[in-house]
């Protein structure tokens, strides 16, 4: 049985954070989905039925989504699909044989008792599967990035508009209270003017998955992330998460991007870069500096929001101030001196911490830990039952993938690439 207490604790904390956020008018514009989510009552949702969901692609990420969905009370996994036999067998085992199993996703789409599908296949397959699923009148959750090409991203958005179904893309940071609180604090001016964001994702491995018996026919099927036909490598598999964050915090999309990519360490026949460095330019001279590599992991991953008054590091949930506020007692003393007042200087108080006070370690943006993937899947299942998409999510995902693919184009060409006008979405009304 799944651990209900952990789920409930997450959920309670999630609701607490969201109810606070939902009360802030600034949140409606920066995270309209959060405001909509905060008004939901999921506790009794399962009594009125469960969202019946099939999972297409049960590899590493698909398995994680499956396990998360199994913890959602108002969701039921009714079908699984994978063309790779080990994944196919594992999916059957994970669902205890209760879900119908398919090798061809088109057969799954013909099921009658299914409401939605989760697409977690290799990137190049996202577009046609998503479009087919929407065409079959099913709601769709698709893992990021959206698609392998700019044109496919646009086709997916158009297919969504032409259907009465939901298309949600997996960007779990949009459901993370740390990020939601951080953007609310950033918009309030707490860290001043944000003119630069630095983001990076560093790993130290060859990014390969084992191919059984060294069967070369399976190489591209298993290691699809390494081949340009199927993936833009680091850009679509890692960077798109952080590009979404940068767009979100700048409340903008880049006007152009320049970059350099290379295969500089893992020269093993792969086609995608193992080292990338890019500059995304936004309006008013604002910039995102981005890099990713897979032969050094010392710095890990981070998004650093650099403001004139402070810095936020989102992955590690920290905020730092350029000029820490003085202790209340010292502040009072300075004011008293200016006014010629002689009175007691209060040291400490109920929230006073002797010895530590403000440290260079900064402070937490939000206390607590969250499983944002779990909350994301819970929200998707709720959206399916409500038959209504949460506003703003698709726009964030679309722009993140477009930015990733334009970055790839800039690196491939060695030239700056401007954001094409046709890849701008019309503004959504604020809910």
């Amino acid at each position, binding site marked *: 049985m799944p651990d209900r207490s952990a789920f409930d604790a997450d959920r309670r904390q999630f609701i607490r954070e969201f109810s606070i956020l939902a009360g802030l008018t600034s949140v409606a514009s920066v995270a309209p989905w959060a405001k909509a989510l905060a008004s939901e009552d999921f506790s009794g949702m399962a009594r009125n039925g469960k969202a019946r969901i099939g999972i297409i692609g049960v590899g590493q990420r698909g398995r994680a989504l499956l396990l998360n969905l199994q913890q959602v009370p108002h969701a039921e996994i009714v079908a699984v699909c994978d063309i790779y036999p080990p994944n196919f067998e594992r999916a059957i085992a994970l669902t205890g044989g209760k879900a119908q199993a398919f090798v061809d996703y088109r057969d799954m789409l013909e099921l009658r008792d299914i409401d939605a599908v989760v697409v977690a296949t290799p990137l190049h397959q996202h577009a046609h599967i998503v479009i087919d699923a929407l065409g079959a009148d099913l709601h769709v959750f698709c893992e990021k990035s959206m698609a392998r090409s700019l044109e496919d991203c646009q086709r997916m958005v158009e297919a969504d508009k032409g259907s009465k179904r939901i298309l949600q893309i997996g960007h779990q940071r949009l459901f993370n209270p740390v990020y939601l609180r951080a953007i609310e604090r950033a918009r309030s001016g707490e860290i001043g003017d944000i003119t630069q964001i630095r983001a990076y994702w560093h790993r130290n491995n060859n990014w390969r998955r084992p191919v059984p018996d060294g069967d070369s026919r399976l190489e591209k099927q298993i290691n699809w992330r390494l081949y340009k036909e199927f993936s833009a490598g680091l850009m679509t598999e890692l960077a798109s998460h952080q590009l979404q964050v940068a767009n979100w915090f700048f409340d903008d999309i880049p006007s152009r991007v320049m970059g350099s990519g290379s295969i500089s360490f893992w020269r093993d026949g792969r086609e995608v870069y193992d080292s990338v460095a890019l500059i995304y330019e936004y309006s008013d001279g604002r910039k995102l500096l981005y890099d990713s590599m897979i032969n050094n992991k010392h710095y890990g991953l981070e998004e650093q929001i650099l403001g004139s008054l402070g810095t936020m590091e989102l992955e590690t949930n920290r905020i730092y101030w350029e*000029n*820490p506020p*003085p*202790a209340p*007692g*010292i502040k009072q*003393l*300075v004011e008293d*001196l*200016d006014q*010629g*007042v*002689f*009175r*007691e*200087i*209060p*040291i*400490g*108080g*109920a*929230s*006073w*911490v*002797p*010895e*530590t*006070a*403000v*440290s*260079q*370690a900064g402070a937490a943006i939000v206390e607590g830990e969250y499983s944002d993937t779990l909350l994301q899947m819970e929200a998707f299942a709720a959206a399916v039952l409500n038959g209504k998409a949460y506003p703003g999510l698709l726009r964030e995902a679309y722009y993140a993938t477009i930015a990733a693919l334009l970055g790839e184009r800039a690196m491939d060409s060695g030239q700056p690439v401007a954001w094409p006008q046709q890849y701008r979405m019309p503004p959504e009304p604020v809910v």
Partner: protein
Amino acid sequence: MNYHAQLESMGTRFDLVLPRLGTSRGDALLLQIDAELQQWEQSLSGFRADSAVTLLNARLARDHSAAVDDPLLWQALELADFGYTLTQGWFNIAGGRLYAAYKRNEAVSPAERQAYANARIYLDRATRVVSTQGADTLLDFGGLGKGLALDAVKDILEAAGVRNGFVSFGESSILALGHHPNGAYWSVVVNDPLVRGKILDTFSLRDRFLTISSTVANGAGSGGLQSHLVDPRSGRLIDEQRTVTTVGESGALGEIISTAKLVAGEQLSVASLSASAADSCRLFTHNTGMDGSYA
């Protein structure tokens, strides 16, 4: 015109308040003070990989004995050794290994506790060599570095002809130099860390250092312990909610006495120590309601 500036130093905030002093003169003093604080941090910070004490700890772990070239580190070692004797062993910098283990929530065996109880440093002043007893000794100066730095700040201010000033190091080590321009002293109240609105202690300070040490965690009524203070005689964790206030003529000595009293509780009578050790030292034990136990 009054001067106020803040720095981040030694893991906390440092506030410098100098009445009736202009910005240019204040900024010049601040630069000098910042340089002094950085020197102390570079000598005594256990959080810096290249600090003098970190390098010393590495040598002691290997050889149990090492020459000390860094003059500030040697000054701190001499004072720590004096503090050990003065407080009858209640102030002991040699227990860092045990402190670190408690901080990491690691299990500590009775043998390890006993090893700490026996640990101490020995100084050969002629050769400036420090040696340790016990193979697992790690030196941790705790708040002593701030006290030493604050003493040095007082010297800088006095040498510059500054007569009045209020200097706070994380609100736990305070220098009240001279007096408030509108009063005969600096009036300070220390609030109870657990009870909002309750005053724990009050002071009228003139040319004195106030040191405040506590085991109490952040947050009203949280009841948790802020730090993992260790009884140097038994190696056991201090699990009582205590706060100590100490007033005296030296910031460094104030740190020694404050820390010793915090871990020793009623077992240490500060009044019985050297007359110049402290003007006052008061222990407040929060969870029993006992207070004002001037030893």
